[in-house]
């Protein structure tokens, strides 16, 4: 089978030695199984996420993503852009849409890009890895590669915000998207039904600047997972993954809780089910170890 090519936008947090480097590891593992070829956009830059607005105006922020779009057109022509980070996907797709609907902004973005020796046609679809898995492969095809079904593992599918809003996955609702549950089910695990905090906010970047307010949100997300009988939380979003995993110690101190809930990328979960080793699945990146997955991966 020939490989499917995509133009890959990894984003800052996915780099070596960065907070979502374990996401990259696990994505590479599942791409190997599914014969997905990710061609990194050469010299890509930060998208400014959704917190760059204090220093960057609308056009400078759009220019950031426009540069990535233009680099992709030049170096990976004809390939859909794929992002694994929710904020990267959102910013890039938002830019594509905004520039497609506003001729003046499009012209201005191109004037700015010219300074970097680039031009933008703005024809490339911008997709999330989850869209690729569901739309280009489908649940049955994803299931067909399972070597170690995750039988008996109960999972709170935490979709979070930016993978779900404002764009979301085609055919899914904003209030109760079910694709993540369907993916975990395809891997042989049991999704928590009606996980109450499925699309709630973890505070995002404000976990840094408004920690106390964000910890309260995170506490509810974890509590609801325990209420649903979950063994672990699974998420597609790097910010969700970090916020919900790493502050549990502080939250325990503050609220007298005893949280010790693993928060795992969907791609790590899939990699284990596909028979990859713990290291290949990025499980050594867990600050709170996912013991059931560790045992299964061996």
């Amino acid at each position: 089978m020939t490989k499917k090519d995509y133009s890959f936008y990894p984003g800052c947090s996915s780099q070596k030695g960065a907070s979502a480097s374990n996401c990259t590891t696990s994505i590479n593992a599942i791409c190997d199984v599914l014969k997905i070829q990710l061609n990194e956009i050469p010299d890509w830059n930060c998208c400014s996420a959704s917190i760059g607005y204090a220093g960057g105006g609308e056009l400078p922020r759009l220019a950031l993503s426009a540069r990535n779009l233009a680099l992709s057109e030049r170096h990976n022509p004809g390939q859909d852009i794929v992002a694994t980070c929710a904020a990267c996907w959102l910013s890039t797709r938002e830019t594509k849409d905004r520039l497609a609907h506003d001729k003046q902004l499009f012209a201005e973005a191109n004037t700015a890009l010219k300074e970097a020796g680039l031009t933008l046609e703005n024809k490339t679809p911008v997709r999330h890895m989850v869209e690729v898995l569901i739309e280009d492969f489908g649940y049955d095809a994803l299931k067909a590669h399972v070597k170690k079904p995750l039988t008996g593992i109960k999972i709170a599918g935490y979709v979070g915000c930016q993978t779900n809003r404002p764009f979301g996955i085609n055919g899914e609702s904003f209030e109760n998207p079910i694709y993540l549950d369907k993916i975990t089910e395809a891997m042989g695990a049991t999704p928590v039904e009606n996980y109450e905090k499925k699309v709630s906010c973890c505070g995002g970047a404000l976990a840094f600047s408004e920690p106390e307010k964000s910890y309260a949100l995170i506490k509810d997300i974890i509590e609801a997972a325990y209420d649903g009988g979950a063994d672990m939380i699974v998420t597609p979003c790097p910010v969700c993954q970090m916020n919900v995993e790493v502050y549990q110690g502080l939250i325990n101190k503050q609220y007298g809780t005893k949280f010790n809930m693993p928060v795992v990328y969907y791609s790590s979960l899939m990699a284990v089910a596909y028979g990859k080793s713990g290291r290949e699945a990025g499980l050594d990146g867990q600050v709170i170890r996912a013991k059931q997955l560790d045992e299964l991966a061996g």
Partner: protein
Amino acid sequence: MNEPNQTAPGTYRGNFLREVEANVEEGEWVKMCMQCGVCAGSCPLGPYWEHPPQEIFMMIRAGKREEVLSSSSMWMCTSCYNCLVRCPRELPITHIMHGLATYAKRLGMEPKQAPMTPRFAQKFWDNLTATGRVNELKLGLALYFINGVAEGVQTSMKMQDIGLGMLKTKRMSPFEILGGHGVKDRAGFHAMLKKAEEIELAKIAKNKAAGV
């Protein structure tokens, strides 16, 4: 202190709505708000907003320039996009809030001490534009020490378990302090951003002169 920018430009004849429509990202949508309040009820930090979005929209129409632009409200936005997808009038509320924050900051009218988000968001921008990619280690340290050394040491102590966890799992690298990741075409990257900023500022100046 009477900064020229902080007083309403005479050219807008006190019409703050027109000023917002001309200069704030997606500002032309403000007048479409029908005051239902679904945005306020959908916001994860709703209880902490000085004025929820629908109030901000009405205050803009009522010409409350100073109160809106110096408000801490829009700095409470977590960018969860819940308000945006639920708004029955389909206002891009999240973007308008970001746009108001940008405009307030540009005029120097943002809250200076609390909340911390205006300063953190500026640090994020400075961090990413320096090399083209975010340096998480430098960003984290800059944040911890945002209120000076004494508080910085205290915050670092409080956060040390988190830092150790990230180091142990190789999700943080001490070597990032030496420079770390970045784009290769640094000159082109910076020239592009400079040009984009120039175009945007020229537009605002033109709007002001024309009294749009």
